């Protein structure tokens, strides 16, 4: 067993163990931290497969972006130290059964399938310049169209996030802004703003006509 193999098994054991902890941890904040470790392990696996660019993107986007976003949303939505309620035994038992069955099924298929060995296994090198050239290539094997579509998708997601998370204007404030001048003029120029609950008939008629 060479060091290359030992490193692979170490990385895979690390990824699987931290992933199991991430989906079973009791406290949600610890769960997020275990997810962080699992994603770093996946990045290490990409380094092991010698695709350094994908590993760098994985670290930048997932570890630096998505997990930080999740941790912030945990801070914003609930107390980070609070315990999650345990799932009922029946649900976890059946989930475990379903997952084990699915894993056994897929394992069986993969183990039986005979992958064609690559003739004279060429070295797999991914220079970043080749990725960049093919990404912006407009010829037959270029990826410029998905690139542009993804840029539009990111723009749409950004606008959507802003619109969804924007705090709506409270209704009372908007009503006050609209009805206050009407009430003030209907009240023979007194400075006291009238409560919106009991408008006088004149302003009510005005509102009906408008």
């Amino acid at each position, binding site marked *: 067993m060479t060091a*290359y193999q030992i490193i692979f098994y170490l990385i895979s054991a690390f990824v699987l163990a931290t992933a199991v902890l*991430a*989906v079973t941890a009791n406290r949600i904040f610890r769960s997020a931290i275990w997810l962080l470790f699992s994603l770093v392990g996946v990045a290490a696996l990409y380094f092991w497969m010698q*695709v350094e660019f*994908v590993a760098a993107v994985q670290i930048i986007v997932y570890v630096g972006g998505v997990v930080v976003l999740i941790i912030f949303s945990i801070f914003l*939505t*609930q107390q980070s130290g609070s315990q999650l309620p345990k799932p009922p035994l029946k649900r976890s038992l059946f989930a475990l059964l379903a997952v084990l069955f*699915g*894993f056994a099924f897929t394992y069986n298929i993969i183990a039986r399938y005979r992958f064609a060995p690559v003739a004279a296994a060429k070295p797999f090198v991914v220079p970043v310049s080749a990725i960049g050239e093919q990404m912006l290539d407009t010829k037959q094997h270029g990826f410029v169209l998905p690139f542009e579509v993804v840029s539009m998708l990111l723009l749409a997601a950004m606008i*959507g996030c802003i619109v969804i998370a924007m705090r709506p204007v409270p209704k009372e404030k908007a009503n006050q802004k609209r009805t206050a001048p009407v009430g003030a003029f209907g009240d023979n120029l007194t400075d006291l703003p009238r409560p919106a609950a009991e408008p006088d008939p004149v302003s009510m008629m005005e509102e009906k006509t408008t």
Partner: protein
Amino acid sequence: MNEIPLTHILFLSTALFFIGMYGLFTRRNLITMLMAIELMLNSVNINFVAFNKYLYPDKLNGVFFTLFIIAVAAAEAAVAIAIFINLYRNHRSIDVEETEQMRY
């Protein structure tokens, strides 16, 4: 150099996918369900890169698919978290059992 067979990497990604699926089945908190989905997307990315490395070492398509999946997953996580925060403002809870309407 490539002493690890392709099937071992596929077993790893399969196990990661089903761990994520277990989390999706058992958890009832929206944020932890999102974490489980991220795990599943990562296992798919491992598969793409492994197939590209072992079966088609002279092409780059698997790497491109991985990059695009990462971009889409980031957009999806951002939109999902915006929805969760809005839901928490209206319902004071992000548990899926108590979330009966998303309209406000």
